[in-house]
C-alpha cells in the first residue's frame, strides 16, 4: 500500500461513514427529555409496533417456508431450468413491494378481480342476486391486515432466504449427504440437510424480519397502521422529536434482528469472506433430471406467485381491461379517455413523464456514484486490517427509511443549506444513505472473489496499479460490479419511504407518485403508471439487449460484406 493509498483510507472511510450514518446521528441528536407527552406517545405506539413485529414475523416464517424448498429444488434442477428460475427469483426481488401490495388488492381484495367472482361462484355472496346487492358485496379477507402485509413482504423477500440456502448448498460437499444416506438412509439425509441448512436459513429469516420491519410503503398501501405510519404522521404534524422517539424501538428491533441474522450467517460462513473467496466443493450433486426440473418449476410457480406472478397478472389484467374500458373505468381521468394499452401508457407518460425522467437521471447518477465509491472503498481497504470497515458501513443497511428521512430533514433543513435541501441533491443523499451499504457489500463480494494470485501474476507480468485493475480485476469482477450497480439503481428508483419525506416540493419522483396514485387513482391508471415504473426499473436491462442486437446486426452485415 503506497503513501497516497494510506492517507486516502481515512478520508474515504470518513466520507462513507458521514454519508451512511449522518442521518441516523442527526435523528438521534433530536431525542431530548423536553419532548412532551412521552407516556401517551409510547402508549399509542404499542399497538403499531406490535403490528409491525407481527407482520415482520409472518414475513420471516412464510419466506422460510417458500425460500428453503425453492432453493433446494432449484439447485437440483438442470442448468437451463436452474438459471431460468433463479432469474425469475431475482426479478421478484426487484419488483417494488408496494406494487405487489397493489396487485393483491386488485386480485384478492374485498372487490378483487379473483376473490369476488370466486366468492360469488362458491355461494358466499349476498342472499339476493340483485345487481346492486352484488355490486355492494365485499369479500371479507385478509389483504388489509397485518397478515396480508406479512404475506406480501414474504412474497417479495423470500429470495433472500433462497440465495443464502443455495449458497450453503453450493459450498457443501455432497459426499456428506451420501455418507448420511449410507448410515441412516433417507432419514439420515434429511437430518443432515436440516443440520446443514437450518442455521443459515434462520439467519436469513432474521434478515427478512428486519427488512420487513423497515418496510413503510406496503402497510400504507394496505392501510395497516404500523410504527412506520405512526412516525410518518408525527413528521407530517411537525413533531420531529416525537417521531424520533417512536423510531427508537423500531431501530432497536431492526438492529437486533439484523445483527443477529448477520452474526448467524457469518458463523455459518454463509456470508463470510471465506465463502466469497471461491471455496468450491469437490463433489456436487448428481445432474438433475426432467423430474427435478418439473419439481423446481412447480415450486417456482408457488413461490413466485405472491411476489412476481400476481403483479404481472394484475397489470396484464388491468391492461386488457383498458382495451375496452367499462363505464366505471371511464371516469374523469385523462389516462383512460382513450382505450387500449398503448393509449393507457401514453396517458401515464403524459401524467408522469417528468417524474419518470427525473427518477431515471437521478437513479443513474446515484447508481454510478455509489458503484464508483464502492469500488474505490473496497480497493483502498483491501488489506485485511481494514476489511472491518466494509462490514461497519454495511451495518448502515439497518437504518430504517423513516429514520433516514427524518435525520436528513433535521440535518439539512436550515436556511444556509437550502441549496441542498430544496434540490434533488437531498434525495440523492437519502438514496446513498439507504443503499450505499448494499452496493458496497455486493461490490466487495465481487472484488473479493478475484483471487489475489491473479493480481500478483499481473504485477509480475509488468502491470502497475491501474493496469492490474483494468486488465485483471475489472473483467473478473464485472458481473458482481454490474449487480452492485443494478441493485443501487433498482432500489433507488423504487425507493418510497425516505424519498417521500425528503422530496423537494415541485420535483416529485416516480415511486412516491405511483404510491400516492394507489391511494386515490383508478385501477387502469395505476396499472399504466406501474408499467411506467417497471419500464424505468428495466431500463438498464434493456441496454445490454440493445447493444447485443446492434452487435448482432453489425456482425451479420460484416459477414455479408465479407
Amino acid at each position, binding site marked *: 500500500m503506497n503513501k497516497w493509498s494510506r492517507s486516502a483510507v481515512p478520508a474515504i472511510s470518513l466520507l462513507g461513514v458521514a454519508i451512511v450514518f449522518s442521518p441516523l446521528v442527526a435523528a438521534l441528536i433530536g431525542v431530548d427529555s423536553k419532548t412532551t407527552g412521552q407516556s401517551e406517545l409510547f402508549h399509542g405506539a404499542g399497538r403499531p409496533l406490535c403490528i409491525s413485529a407481527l407482520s415482520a414475523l409472518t414475513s420471516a416464517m412464510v419466506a422460510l417456508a417458500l425460500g428453503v424448498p425453492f432453493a433446494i429444488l432449484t439447485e437440483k434442477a438442470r442448468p437451463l431450468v436452474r438459471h431460468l428460475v433463479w432469474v425469475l427469483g431475482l426479478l421478484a426481488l426487484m419488483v417494488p413491494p408496494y406494487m405487489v401490495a397493489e396487485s393483491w388488492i386488485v386480485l384478492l381484495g374485498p372487490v378483487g378481480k379473483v376473490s369476488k367472482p370466486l366468492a360469488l361462484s362458491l355461494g358466499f355472496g349476498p342472499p339476493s342476486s340483485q345487481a346492486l346487492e352484488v355490486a355492494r358485496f365485499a369479500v371479507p379477507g385478509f389483504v388489509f391486515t397485518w397478515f396480508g402485509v406479512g404475506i406480501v413482504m414474504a412474497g417479495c423477500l423470500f429470495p433472500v432466504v433462497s440465495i443464502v440456502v443455495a449458497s450453503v448448498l453450493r459450498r457443501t460437499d455432497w459426499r456428506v449427504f451420501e455418507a448420511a444416506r449410507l448410515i441412516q438412509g433417507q432419514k439420515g439425509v434429511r437430518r443432515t440437510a436440516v443440520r446443514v441448512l437450518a442455521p443459515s436459513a434462520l439467519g436469513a429469516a432474521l434478515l427478512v424480519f428486519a427488512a420487513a420491519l423497515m418496510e413503510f410503503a406496503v402497510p400504507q398501501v394496505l392501510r395497516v397502521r404500523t410504527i412506520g405510519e405512526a412516525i410518518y404522521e408525527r413528521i407530517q404534524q411537525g413533531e420531529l422529536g416525537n417521531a424520533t422517539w417512536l423510531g427508537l424501538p423500531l431501530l432497536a428491533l431492526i438492529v437486533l434482528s439484523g445483527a443477529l441474522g448477520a452474526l448467524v450467517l457469518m458463523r455459518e460462513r454463509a456470508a463470510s469472506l471465506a465463502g466469497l473467496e471461491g471455496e468450491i466443493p469437490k463433489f456436487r450433486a448428481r445432474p438433475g433430471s426432467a423430474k427435478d426440473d418439473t419439481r423446481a418449476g412447480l415450486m417456482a410457480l408457488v413461490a413466485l406467485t405472491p411476489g412476481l406472478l400476481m403483479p404481472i397478472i394484475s397489470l396484464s389484467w388491468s391492461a386488457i381491461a383498458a382495451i375496452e374500458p367499462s363505464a366505471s373505468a371511464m371516469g374523469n381521468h385523462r389516462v383512460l379517455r382513450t382505450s387500449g394499452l398503448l393509449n393507457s401508457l401514453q396517458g401515464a407518460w403524459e401524467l408522469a413523464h417528468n417524474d419518470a425522467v427525473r427518477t431515471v437521471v437521478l437513479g443513474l447518477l446515484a447508481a454510478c456514484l455509489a458503484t464508483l465509491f464502492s469500488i474505490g472503498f473496497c480497493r483502498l481497504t483491501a488489506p485485511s486490517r481494514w476489511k472491518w470497515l466494509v462490514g461497519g458501513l454495511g451495518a448502515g443497511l439497518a437504518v430504517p427509511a423513516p429514520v433516514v428521512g427524518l435525520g436528513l430533514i433535521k440535518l439539512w433543513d436550515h436556511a444556509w443549506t437550502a441549496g441542498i435541501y430544496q434540490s434533488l441533491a437531498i434525495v440523492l443523499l437519502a438514496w446513498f444513505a439507504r443503499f450505499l451499504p448494499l452496493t458496497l457489500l455486493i461490490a466487495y463480494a465481487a472484488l473479493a472473489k478475484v483471487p489475489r494470485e491473479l493480481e*500478483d501474476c499481473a*504485477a509480475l507480468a*509488468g502491470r502497475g496499479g491501474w493496469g492490474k485493475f483494468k486488465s485483471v480485476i475489472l473483467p473478473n469482477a464485472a458481473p458482481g460490479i454490474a449487480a452492485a450497480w443494478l441493485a443501487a439503481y433498482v432500489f433507488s428508483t423504487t425507493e418510497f419511504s425516505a424519498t417521500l419525506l425528503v422530496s423537494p416540493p415541485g420535483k416529485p419522483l416516480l415511486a412516491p407518485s405511483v404510491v400516492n396514485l394507489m391511494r386515490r387513482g383508478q385501477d387502469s391508471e395505476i396499472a399504466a403508471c406501474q408499467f411506467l415504473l417497471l419500464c424505468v426499473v428495466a431500463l438498464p436491462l434493456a441496454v445490454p439487449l440493445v447493444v447485443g442486437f446492434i452487435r448482432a446486426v453489425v456482425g451479420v452485415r460484416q459477414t455479408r460484406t465479407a
Partner: protein
Amino acid sequence: MKSILVVTGLSHAYNGSLALDQLSFALCAGERLAVLGPSGSGKTTLLRLIAGLETPTLGDIALADQTASQTGEVLIAPQHRGVAMVFQGLALFPHLNALEQISFAARGHGGVAHALELLDRIGLSHRASARLDQLSGGERQRIALARALAQKPRLILMDEPFASLDDEKRAEMRELLQTLLDETTLVLVTHSREDAFQLTNRVLVLDRGRLRAFGALEEVVANPCHSAVAKTLGLGQLLAGEIVGPGEAITEFGRIAVLNKSKSSKVQVLVRPGQPRIVPRPAGVEVEVVSLELRSPDLREVRRVAVVKAATETLRLILPDKTVAVGDRLHIRIEGECDTVES
C-alpha cells in the same frame, strides 16, 4: 560465476509468527534450486519475498547485484524485477483464452508473435482460442509455464507447479520444462523428491522457517546434517542414540558405527535402506515383526519389507525371503557406518 540471487539474513513474520528465520543463500545464473520442506515451512513465503509480493520483516534480497528488497521495504517493484512465477494454483486468468494468457505476459517481450511461438513450443498452437474451462489440467499447466517464460525472465519461480498432475503428466511436464528452460535460473518449490532430483542441481531444505541445508544435491544427500533434511529427502530412518565412544553410538537396535559430526552426546542416527540385516542368533538384537509391507523403489522389483520393533522404536527391514510372518522374532544388526544428524 555471477550471482543472480543473493538472500541475506531474511526473516518474515505473519501476524507475529515467524514464517522465515534468518535465511541466507546465493544462487548463480543458470543454476536450478529445489526448495524442499514440510507444509508450513515457509517455502511459498520465500518465493513471494523473492518476487517482491511480500516485504521482508528483516534482511535483504539482491537480484543481479541490485538490492531488490530490504528490511521493511520493497525497492524494486515486482514488475521490474525480471522475475516470473508459476503459482501453485496456476493463477490463470479466467477471462482470457490460451493465447491471450501468454500474450498478457509477452507484452513488451515480443508480443503476440512471441506468444504464438511459445504456444507452438508447448504443443498447444491448435488450442490458441480455447478458454480456460475448455483446457485440461495438463494443458493449463503448460499455459502457465509458457506465460511465465513469455516475460523472458532471468529467474523463474515455481510453486509446486505439478502438484495436481498424475505421475505420467508430471513426467511429461518435467521433460517439457527441461527443454524450455535453457539457461534460465530456476527456483522450484516442491514436495516431490523426483521433481527435485530430475529438474534441479541444488537443494535448499526448510524446516519451520529455518534453513537446514543448502548446497549441491549430491553433497546434501551424502552429508545430511539435520534430521529435517533426512526426513524431507527420504534418506532413511532416524533412531535416537547416544555416543558411547569414538565412532560408536548405542541405540535400541544395538551398537552402531557412526560418522559423528555432532558435539552433543545425544544424537539422531540416520539408518539408510539396506543397512539393517537379519543375522543368526545370538548375534544382533532381538526384534519382533509387527507388520509386513511391499515396497518397489524403482518399479523393477517388488521387495518385502518388515516393520520390526525393539523396545519402543521401529525400523524397516528388507526381507531376503518370504518365510517371515507377523509376530516372528528375528535378530538384526545395523551394518556399515551411519551418519548422525542434529534434531
